[in-house]
């Protein structure tokens, strides 16, 4: 594996890392396997697309709007639809989140059609050199921003009252209740944070790759793997998982051909599940 491939892999991995964390948090802490996660990611992409087309707003700026909108959507969905049915177990939450995906998918199809879209910013073509390799400026910026966002998420979880509340609930629900933490509110904010991260990822994705509703399923497939690799609810675990997946996909595409990519991902995931169900990082905990 040469330098260029490694750099490509890492840049991709950084974005995957950000993408996987949201899903991992929702599953690991709020206990919800969100099958509409892919829809939320590309919704973020489309939101940035609109702001770019209408107001020439750079995706790095409109991502904040995406994140905000998706946060509200996530909170709304959780509060009205998921919370009342949590006791129904996995069957209910899987079907519900799948239903959300269908609705969001339909809206996207109606408004934007199934065509692939992109956002072409003016500095799209610039590269800079690093040793033997070329690094596209945008991909570097995306990686950089993703890394910052991941770190901000970590800071939020470690240093704010709400973040610590979420951590407490994740570690010991009854204990957290006993000290007066509003457990339901923590789950809600955590879930909304997850969708916000999805939206942010979508905006960043839109600036470098094309997107369409076709990505809905594959994204969910990827974040599954990332979440399991890193251990559910584990921010740095998911980050590492994202990087690993980026490397595996890039290497896989080069050495094995892209058809085997998905199989590799699946095999890795099942192996991890069997061998270390708590993820490569060990027991579920924060950072």
């Amino acid at each position: 594996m040469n330098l260029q491939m490694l750099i490509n892999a890492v840049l991709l991995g950084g974005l995957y890392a950000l993408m996987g964390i949201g899903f991992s948090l929702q599953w690991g802490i709020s206990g919800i396997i969100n099958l509409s996660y892919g829809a939320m990611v590309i919704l973020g992409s489309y939101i940035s697309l609109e702001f770019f087309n209408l107001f020439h707003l750079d995706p790095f700026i409109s991502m904040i709007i995406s994140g905000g909108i998706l946060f509200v959507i996530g909170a709304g969905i959780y509060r009205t639809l998921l919370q009342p049915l949590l006791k129904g177990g996995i069957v209910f939450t899987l079907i519900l989140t799948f239903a959300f995906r269908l609705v969001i998918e339909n809206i996207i199809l109606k408004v934007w059609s199934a065509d692939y879209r992109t956002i072409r910013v003016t500095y799209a073509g610039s590269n800079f050199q690093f040793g033997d390799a070329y690094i596209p400026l945008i991909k570097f910026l995306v990686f950089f921003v993703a890394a910052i966002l991941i770190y901000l998420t970590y800071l939020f979880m470690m240093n704010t009252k709400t973040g610590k509340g979420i951590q407490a609930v994740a570690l010991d629900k009854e204990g957290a209740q006993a000290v007066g933490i509003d457990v339901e509110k923590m789950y809600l904010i955590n879930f909304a944070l997850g969708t916000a991260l999805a939206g942010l990822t979508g905006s960043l994705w839109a600036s470098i790759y094309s997107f369409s509703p076709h990505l809905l399923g594959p994204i969910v497939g990827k974040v599954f793997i990332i979440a399991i690799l890193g251990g559910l609810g584990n921010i740095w675990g998911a980050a590492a998982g994202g990087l690993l997946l980026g490397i595996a996909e890039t290497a896989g595409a080069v050495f094995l051909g892209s058809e085997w990519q998905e199989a590799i991902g699946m095999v890795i995931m099942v192996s991890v599940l069997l061998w270390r169900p708590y993820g490569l990082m060990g027991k579920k905990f924060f950072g």
Partner: protein
Amino acid sequence: MFNNKKVNVFLIILGIIIFFFLPRFISGYWVRVITTIFMYAVIAQGMNLMSGYMGYLPFGNAMFFGIGAYITAIGMSKGMSFLAVLPLSALTAILVSILFGLPVLRLRGHYFAIATIGMSGAILSVVQNATEITGGAMGTTLPIINKSPEVTYNYFYLAMLALMVITSLTIYLVVKSKFGFGIRSIKANEEAANSMGINTTYHKVVAWAISALFTSIAGALYAYWMSFIGPEEVFDVMIAVNTIVIMLIGGAGSVLGPIIGAFVISLLSEVVWGTFLEYHLAVLGIIIIIIVFFVPKGITGTIADLIKKRELRLRKKVSV
């Protein structure tokens, strides 16, 4: 159902007879629709045994459908007759369920469901890539039956009807048996079940093997019926999703549930497709949400509740 066993048996036999003669009165289109309903009922029975009765949701169960379809396709392309290759397909599915079941059934709840998706995805990838054997991503054909379309679809209608009846009967007998109690205990409280002398591993593996058996036969019949299958089609995640919705609306933990659910969902889809072509996804999604909210126990569950409430009210009246 109704409390009188004889009434139940009579109604079931009546139902089977009605279904047997139905094709003479309806169009070919509806015969094919109902055949698909029977097929989904079989798949749902298999999943219901695992999920509704035992509490383990095999989200990727469609993999057995695909295995059944592909082994049949491959076997028949080598000259085997359908009836010769059918046991082979079923056996393959059972072996896969046992081989992978032993490690994977140790996982609890979410992890098990996800692991089955992983298994299904991996098998799909293998099928897509082993182009020499399976025809790869472009699919593969089966020998076309040398009869008129009408005879053909009637034949498969009856075959699927028979499969549905056999599957439902088998599952019913399993659930009512001592083994069935073991399965239900696992869902109720797996730790307690272990402490009571129930070999939970054995129960879980056998239950999945039964589920795999019938699901794979449905896949085998489907492949022969369609004469052409592709990997994305028979390993489709939508099969699992449809099945789960069927189980939900039919009601888990009941043998009638999957059958009722399959009919309701199919008829609902027909209506939605016809009326809302452009919005059919969203409408389906909204309907699912409504079902989950207002009929969480499904049709059979809600009716069972109503019957119980009526009994309680009657009992109160009598005692007063």
